[in-house]
């Protein structure tokens, strides 16, 4: 076995091995203390380093051409690893001792699953990775074993299973029609024999992905699950597995669907528009901060989905001189924008959920009915200044106020929409950003403008470290976006070769 040949995949291998190791350790040691946490941390850092060394690798195929390591996969892997890393840092204080080994093992396995998805160019591997991540996260969603957790996990599991069933059904239909499971082959074969069956198959597949992305009307599990699961798991869900859905969608939709030149983008435009608006509107009424964040994630998924519309509208169009980046086609810019927003949103949402975890963990010590109720955030600025400030930055970033990562992602994405002639969609998106201010400002005003609802909170180190790192990342991307824009464009090139 030529291991060095598989060098780009060492990260996945390491994490898998580490997961097994942690489980073994947990079984053998009575109280493993913080060891699983630190081991995961080390493993994730190593994997991240590996990915970082390979960021702009030329597409390399492995395992009978089912796994492709290219710039796009590295982008997504970087996102997943960063998110997992942040979650692990925050979890170090919470999940220790007995039972923590399972948590970290599941987390690592979920990360591996996501990484596989981002690399797959084959339907089967895609499914395997997808399910690996999904099953791990189903279990994690029930981890704290409270009633709420169980309800959240059940809903997630049931809904997820149904969508997976659809997805698999779609995959099998595609295989049946085209005779191969490789995406490239599917694409090539579908161009000739496109018919109603292909359409239905693809839509089933989309349903499966849309579930993970939480696009309307496949979003209904999200508010309950994000609210009910342990906060750090919600972070992983919102920032990690949602992006996995996008990764899969990019691979499949863009390679397979576009080849067929179906003008489906109108339907998706409506979908994206409805998702944005519904997410933002519903969030205005919520009193539970995690639900607000859940709806906000739904709305953000709507923004990101604009990329699909852009690709559909502008596929194959001649390259135009885009911004000042050189000659790029608008569809590529759209994907780049989506990628930027994915990166930014991953950071922002992870941070926001970790912040909510911090507040909830303190409040649940006293007997509050709902630790995530917004009234617990009153006067947070004086009770937990670091957390409040980081949350402030996250809220502003999510609202798209410059100079933050959220603003840059939205800017590139909306410009691509304008370039491809979808000005109405860009305008609608910007107006939605204004609407989203309503609930972001609400949280901010509770934190900073209201009288404190309780005593000073001792901010635990793990949470603080994670929050500050995330916040710095969000601001850094916003102030020095150049390198990130270039990176995203490079990654986008993989999908749409010029």
């Amino acid at each position, binding site marked *: 076995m030529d291991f060095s040949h598989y060098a780009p995949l060492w990260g996945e291998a390491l994490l898998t091995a580490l997961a097994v190791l942690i489980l073994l350790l947990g079984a053998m040691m009575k109280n493993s203390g913080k060891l699983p946490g630190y081991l995961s941390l080390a493993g994730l850092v190593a994997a991240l380093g590996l990915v970082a060394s390979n960021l702009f690798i030329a597409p390399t195929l492995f395992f009978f051409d089912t796994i492709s390591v290219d710039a796009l996969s590295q982008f997504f892997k970087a996102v997943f690893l960063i998110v997992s890393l942040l979650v692990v840092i925050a979890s170090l204080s919470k999940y220790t001792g007995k039972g923590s080994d399972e948590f970290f093992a599941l987390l690592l396995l979920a990360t591996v699953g996501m990484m596989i998805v981002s690399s797959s160019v084959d339907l089967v591997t895609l499914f395997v990775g997808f399910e690996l991540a999904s099953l791990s996260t189903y279990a994690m969603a029930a981890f704290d074993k409270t009633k709420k957790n169980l309800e959240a996990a059940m809903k997630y599991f049931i809904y997820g299973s149904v969508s997976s069933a659809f997805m698999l059904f779609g995959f099998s239909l595609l295989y049946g029609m085209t005779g191969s499971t490789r995406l490239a082959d599917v694409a090539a074969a579908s161009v000739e024999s496109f018919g109603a069956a292909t359409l239905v198959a693809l839509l*089933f597949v989309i349903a499966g992905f849309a579930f993970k992305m939480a696009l309307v009307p496949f979003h209904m599990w999200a508010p309950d699950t994000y609210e009910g699961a342990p906060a750090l798991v919600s972070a992983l869900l919102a920032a990690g597995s949602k992006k996995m859905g996008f990764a899969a969608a990019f691979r499949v939709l863009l390679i397979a669907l576009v080849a067929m030149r*179906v003008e489906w983008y109108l339907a998706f435009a409506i979908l994206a528009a409805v998702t944005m608006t519904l997410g933002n509107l519903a969030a205005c009424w919520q009193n539970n901060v995690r639900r607000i964040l859940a709806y906000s994630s739904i709305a953000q998924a709507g923004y990101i989905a604009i990329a699909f519309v852009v690709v559909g509208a502008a596929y194959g169009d001649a390259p135009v001189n885009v911004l000042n980046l050189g000659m790029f086609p608008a569809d590529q810019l759209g994907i780049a924008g989506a990628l930027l927003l994915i990166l930014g949103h991953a950071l922002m949402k992870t941070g926001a959920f970790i912040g909510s975890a911090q507040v909830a963990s303190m409040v649940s010590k006293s007997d509050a009915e709902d630790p995530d109720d917004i009234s617990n955030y009153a006067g947070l600025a004086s009770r937990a200044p670091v957390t409040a400030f980081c949350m402030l930055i996250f809220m502003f970033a999510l609202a798209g106020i410059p100079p933050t990562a959220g603003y840059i992602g939205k800017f590139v994405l909306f410009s691509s929409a304008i370039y491809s002639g979808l000005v109405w969609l860009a305008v609608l998106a910007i107006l939605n950003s204004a609407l989203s201010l309503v609930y972001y400002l609400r949280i901010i005003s509770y934190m900073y403008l209201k009288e404190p609802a309780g005593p000073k909170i001792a901010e635990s180190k793990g949470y603080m470290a994670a929050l500050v790192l995330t916040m710095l990342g969000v601001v850094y991307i916003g102030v020095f976006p150049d390198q990130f824009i270039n990176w995203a464009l490079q990654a986008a090139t993989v999908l749409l070769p010029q």
Partner: protein
Amino acid sequence: MMREMGGVGKYMKWTMYTMLIGSLSLAGFPLFTGFFSKDEIIMIAYEYGIAINFLPYIFLILAAVLTAIYTFRMWFSVFTGKERSNYGKHESPWVMLGPLVILAIFAFAFGFAAQHDFYNYLDSNFEHYDMDFVELGIIGGHALIEEHGAAAEEGEHASAEEGHGAAAEGEGSHAIPLHIQLLPYIVALGGILIAALFYWDRVKKFDPSQVTGDKDPIRKMLLKGYYQHEIMTGWICEGIVYGTALISNTIDIKIVDGWLNWLSAWVMGFAGHVRKVQTGVVQNYVTALMLGIVVLVIAIAAISLAMEVGLI
């Protein structure tokens, strides 16, 4: 207040006499300063009347009469008669009386002594102006000067430096009938007489209450200064201006600001309905999933069909 005075002359002789001189001058009593200036103006107004219309002249004569009456009403009521209240009975100090005397001298003597010199002085000021007196003499399209003969025209040019005074005098003495010339004297004296008849105890014949009383609307109007204060302050200021301000304020609060609150209420209401879709029942979620797929399939199929047919 005048109703509290009366018989002041007994105690303030100097004040009484200087006041008398001033009143006579004001009323236009012959030989006093006031008479000379009034007389000039009244004559010019008469000429204007001959040329165009007599309205200014009539008003001037009326004004002269009334001036005489009210001036001497004041003098008689204040300085003659019985005391009507318990007021301080002493003369003013010389610092106040001094100027009074000086002014009284002027009120009496300046007219006949310095009239012509004064006119010359005024005219000399206009030397530097390029004023065409012929044009100035045209009022309402009628040339005052032409009406009164060619001699006047010579007189105009010759006395251009001396200005209108001389010319007017020259004309006036030609054309104005005697009774008109005498009218200012009659009017002044007549006015004083009337005032005396009403208010001078020595010759008092009539009583003011026979002419007017408290209920008299004309008197009320005059007392209130033609209701100027009521109109200006009451109607215009408090009514129109402040009323506009209050109306604007209401408009601002209800409408210009109101639509904002209405908009936000509407959005939140709409959002409230939207959130009810999330029922919490997982079976509903999955149903929605199925429905979603079905709708998507139909939508996309419809779109591709429409495209093939050529609708889109």
